[in-house]
């Protein structure tokens, strides 16, 4: 048995099975905690009724059976296809969405290398695949994510859905650029595209996670990931108030559940990438067993638990933001991407290039990295502030087209006789 | 693994189909899509040829080809949007008057 597991292919297969189960379970409880967090923020209790199949009568398990009940409900509802919908695409769209959001788990390094029989020789990597392209795979998978939304929107043959899909397409295309720039900063500062080696580079550099060296890039990546997952405040594709649910207006039952699950899977996977790229992956200083040289099975489990904790933290921030911030207007969204994030990202890439030129990332000591990184980030931030400060205060979109409210402002108050018409 | 000859024939087939589509279809967007199909044929050929010569140059040109395709798509779609706005149709026939 142990010898069989030393085969990386078989181990990867096992890992896939375990990860799919774990992520689906995590997604189920993400939906639960989304509701819980929204309730806590609004001084409510949230779902706390559903126990497990009536076992332990009178004890509700704090509502932890809720995701199962929800899933069962989705399963048992009637599958409907609108009459004028484009049926093949209508059925395919949720599946595409779900598959694309799931396959990203393949390249995440979950726990370094594993020495199964404790003979001091590493047997397998705790990663489904470690391809040569590494990070680029992440980009490729992310860029396909828009298809599920756009196709579902178009196939529903509903105007609101179409609006949602079109918004999603424009938004995802725009936010892919700062996403790529933020990832480029990591690639430049680690000199690597393989995710496992990026984690390694962060640990070997004295534990300076990339977030300490490039905090702005971390912020940039987080914001663009919010947009890529269509999460608030970037949920233009499904803005409930204007578009009655946007691209999934016409979906119900399991097909809607797939859209829903894919959004949360996307959140988890994106958080995992954020942790791997900027938060040191499975590494945490001062905790024994989380180092590069620890390859026993318990150390690998501890590393996985550490990465899971970091992911859970990121997902919490996602939810916290969703229940705090209102949605952007679409032109604000575009302006943020093209005039805010992309120039900042370019500045950060330039900073990373300069740092690489002077050999900062490869230095043994921690301090040059921190000083260069934080100083450079401060400089980029200062430049952004300077540019924003010099540009005229932007009044855009609808506000720009509004007549001035001078009718009622003191300077131009109309004479008393005309006030009847003024109102 | 496909051999170079198989890849070249595949590239030829993709190119030919793109050509057929470009000649027959009556939708501007599909016509541009067919030119992209021809790009795919060229890309496959480039990689195959690079492999024959044992060099990376074929793949490097493939990258430049991608950039050119992106440029083509951007400008072509801009033009399509402009044309569509004038006539309200994607058919190239409504612009037959430009034949001169």
């Amino acid at each position, binding site marked *: 048995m142990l010898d069989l597991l030393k085969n990386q292919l078989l181990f990867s297969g096992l890992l896939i099975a375990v990860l799919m189960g774990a992520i689906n379970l995590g997604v189920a409880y993400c939906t639960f905690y989304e509701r819980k967090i929204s309730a806590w923020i609004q001084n409510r209790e949230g779902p706390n009724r559903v126990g497990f199949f009536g076992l332990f009568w009178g004890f509700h398990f704090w509502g932890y059976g809720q995701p199962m009940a929800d899933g069962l409900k989705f399963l048992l509802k009637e599958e409907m296809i609108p009459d004028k919908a484009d049926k093949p695409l209508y059925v395919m769209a949720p599946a595409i969405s779900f598959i694309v959001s799931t396959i990203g788990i393949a390249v995440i390094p979950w726990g370094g290398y594993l020495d199964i029989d404790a003979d001091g020789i590493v047997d397998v990597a705790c990663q489904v695949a*470690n391809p040569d392209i590494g990070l680029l795979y992440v980009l490729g998978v992310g860029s396909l994510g828009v298809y599920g939304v*756009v196709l579902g929107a178009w196939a529903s043959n509903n105007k609101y859905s*179409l609006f949602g899909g*079109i918004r999603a397409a424009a938004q995802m295309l725009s936010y892919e650029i700062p996403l790529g720039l933020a990832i480029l900063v990591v690639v430049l500062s680690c000199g690597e595209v393989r995710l496992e080696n990026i984690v390694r580079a962060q640990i070997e550099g004295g534990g300076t996670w990339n977030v300490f060296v490039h905090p702005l890039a971390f912020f940039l990546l987080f914001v663009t990931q919010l947009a890529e997952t269509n999460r608030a405040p970037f949920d233009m594709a499904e803005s409930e108030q204007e578009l009655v649910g946007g691209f999934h207006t016409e979906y119900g039952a399991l097909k809607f559940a797939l859209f829903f699950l894919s959004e949360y899977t996307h959140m988890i996977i994106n958080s995992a990438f954020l942790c791997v790229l900027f938060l040191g992956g499975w590494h945490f200083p001062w905790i024994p067993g989380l180092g590069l040289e620890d390859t026993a099975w318990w150390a690998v489990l501890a590393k996985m638990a550490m990465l899971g904790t970091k992911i859970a933290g990121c997902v919490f921030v996602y939810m916290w933001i969703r229940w705090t911030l209102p949605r952007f207007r679409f032109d604000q969204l575009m302006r943020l991407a093209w005039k805010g994030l992309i120039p900042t990202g370019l500045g950060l890439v330039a900073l990373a290039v300069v740092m690489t030129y002077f050999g900062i990332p490869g230095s043994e000591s921690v301090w040059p990295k921190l000083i260069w990184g934080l100083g450079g980030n401060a400089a980029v931030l200062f430049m952004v502030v300077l540019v924003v400060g010099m540009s005229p205060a932007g009044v855009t979109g609808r506000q720009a087209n509004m007549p001035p409210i001078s009718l009622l402002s003191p300077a131009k108050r109309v004479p008393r006789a005309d006030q009847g018409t003024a109102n | 693994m496909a051999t170079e000859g198989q890849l070249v024939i595949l590239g030829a087939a*993709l190119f030919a189909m793109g050509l057929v589509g470009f000649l*027959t279809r009556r939708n501007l967007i599909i016509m541009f899509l067919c030119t992209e199909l021809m790009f795919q044929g060229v890309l496959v050929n480039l990689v195959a040829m690079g492999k024959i010569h044992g060099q990376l140059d074929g793949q490097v040109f493939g990258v430049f080809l991608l950039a050119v*395709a992106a440029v083509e798509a951007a400008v072509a779609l801009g033009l399509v949007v402009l044309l569509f706005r004038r006539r309200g149709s994607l058919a190239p026939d409504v612009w037959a008057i430009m034949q001169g």
Partner: protein
Amino acid sequence: MNASLPYLIYALFAVGGAGIYLALPRSGRSTAVPGSILGLAAVGMFVAVVAKYALPSEGAGFSYLFSAMALIGAGRVVTHPKAVYCVLYFVLVIISVSMLLVLQGAEFLAIALIVVYAGAILVTYAFVLMLSQQSASVPGDVRSREPFLAVLAGFFTMACIAGQVGDLPLAAAPSSEQVIRLAQHGEADQAVMPEMMVDGNTAAMGAALMTKYVVTLETTGVLLLVALVGAMAVAKKRVPIEESPDPEKPLGQVGREAAPF
């Protein structure tokens, strides 16, 4: 290798051409079903012929699968009457070609193909298509122009190019040093330790782009910039902007033309 192989391949081209001809959308009774059958038969026979003459090699099955997928996808791009489906079948072509490139060890190009084509260009196509064409298909889409001559021209070109293949190995075993990256972790010894993770295709491509072809790279960048400016200039909505909005006009209607989009 069989001497009659080239003629067999030309014959298969003819069958495929006939299939495409029949499958092209036309105004009268649709012949898409026999056309599709002919085209599928041509692809299947081609793969069978190549597989028969090729020596067994690693990954050959995948390569035939993805080649067949690319060909079928391309055929549907050309013949499908619904424009959105054309775009989707093109995505299928992209993915198949990208997988073929992975099998060839060109991973960077493969993933760049997916990011640039499937992720950006085709989404833009779909975007414009959905904006401009609300219904599934328009009259112009279902009637093709000069299908016979076009198919003749296309498949003559194809035969000409294929005829030039000549001494290329159409069916042979792959060189042994080609490493199949997809199956990299299939062998335990390759994934054992970090030192096994040699710099691969991506690093080599990066080095080539940044040293030998750096001028070309910069030129491409300039080209992209020009295209960006050009596309903006071409497609920019020409809206007369009033300097001082007229307060008498109702809200939201000031200085706006009824935009077609």
